[in-house]
């Protein structure tokens, strides 16, 4: 209920602001809604949203898997940490734009280049978070698992993974928001479809209703995925924790 209320306040603020700014700069909600419906009718909206979502899913999965594996290794093996650390610092501080442009130059304006560039941008944060998680693993539980001769897989699933899960959730959460932001830039610069591409087109035509229609649809999808997928997943992971008052 409070969520709905805050959404209504936002809508009202937008409407009032559009009265002051004028239609050209900030069209009121109904105009944007009309543009949205037109795009949805033609199927373009869903096509571009779908393409963007697929890119997000691929890049996110790739970066999470690779990042978790590398981070775990760096947290557990000293040598891996020493070897990987300079690269990690470099990647962490490399602007997203540099990675995207270089990827397009070296691998061409291809799907592979786009997804790789997005994944590389997200990778280092996943590595850093999972490395912290691996460092914080409880040695006493490790000893328990050793004494009771838990098989490797069981130990991983029941002893190690639950300890890493808050870190995985944190990496996923921050990583997802990063990917949402970067995917549009990658699309704008070198893809012939996707929400980023459409926003680029709208920008060139100065078609603000179209621009807002795509931006808001995209935001709605992000919100939907957050509430329907990410938050329930987090709640499930932490169900054994005593609830905060």
């Amino acid at each position, binding site marked *: 209920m409070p969520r709905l209320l805050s959404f209504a306040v936002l809508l009202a603020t937008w409407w009032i602001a559009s009265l002051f700014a004028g239609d050209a700069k900030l069209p009121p909600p109904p105009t944007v809604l009309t543009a949205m419906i037109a795009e949805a009718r033609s199927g373009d909206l869903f096509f571009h949203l779908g393409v963007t979502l697929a890119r997000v899913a691929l890049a996110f999965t790739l970066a999470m898997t690779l990042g978790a594996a590398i981070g775990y290794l760096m947290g557990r093996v000293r040598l891996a940490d020493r070897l990987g650390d300079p690269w990690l610092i470099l990647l962490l501080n490399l602007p997203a734009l540099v990675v995207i442009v270089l990827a397009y130059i070296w691998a061409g304006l291809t799907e592979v280049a786009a997804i790789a560039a997005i994944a590389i941008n997200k990778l280092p944060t996943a590595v850093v978070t999972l490395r912290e998680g691996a460092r914080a693993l409880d040695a*006493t*539980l490790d*000893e*328990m698992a*050793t*004494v*009771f*001769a*838990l098989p490797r897989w*069981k130990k991983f699933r*029941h*002893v190690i993974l*639950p300890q890493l899960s808050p870190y995985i959730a944190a990496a996923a959460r921050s990583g997802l928001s990063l990917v949402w932001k970067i995917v549009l830039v990658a699309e704008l610069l070198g893809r012939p479809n996707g929400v980023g591409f459409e926003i680029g087109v709208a920008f060139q035509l100065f078609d603000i209703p179209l621009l807002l229609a795509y931006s808001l649809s995209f935001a709605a999808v992000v919100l939907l995925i957050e509430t329907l997928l990410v938050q329930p997943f987090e709640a499930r992971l932490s169900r*054994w*924790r*005593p609830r905060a008052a």
Partner: protein
Amino acid sequence: MRLEVDIASKTFKNAAGEQHDVIDGVSFALDAGEVGVFVGPSGCGKSTMLRILAGLDPDFQGRVSRPAGARIGFVFQEPRLLPWRSVEENVRLVAPLADEAKLSALFEILELNAHRNHFPGELSLGLARRVALARAFAVEPAFLILDEPLASLDAALAARMRDQIAVLMDNRSMITLLVTHDVDDAVRLGDRLFLLSPRPARIVAELPIRTRRGERGDAEIAAIKLDVMRRINGDPSERESA
């Protein structure tokens, strides 16, 4: 089946790089069905010794021969349960072969039946300790290690748990090693007592108790306790006559 231990020495390096001797000559042997109890002042190196015996710390001078492939049941001083698994899952995880009948018997004795689905975070220390006990017994160990299982519990609860442990030990023939600083627990549960010196630990006396565990009378227990206390505190007259 026999446990033979001969630890010549164990040293630790602390963060500042200084060397500390923790164990200085501990050798003994235990047969299946025997309960060996180690009594010593806190911080004397008992827990370090247990970690060596369980194979968790290979860095020491000496030799430990455990029966090959012996299953170990370990009750750590802190319960070391998995907080994200329920009581029952914690037990089943390490003992996948234990059937329902065996588990319920175990939970019955330890009064855990009502807590099967609770998470460890919802349990008191006494309950968590009992879950750790259930876990150690559920694996049907050939070698059972109990590290201060009754420490920091109130006297009534400790006494009840001690009786539960005694019941559980009676039905099994395994090598049992109990570490405690409580002489009363030691005398009531053990078959052979080993008294340890302050750090670095060494065995200062070995006292076999001839009477079976269940048949010890109060007078006998009191007499043994007195003997142990005297040896620990170094009664002067005792020292002269020895």
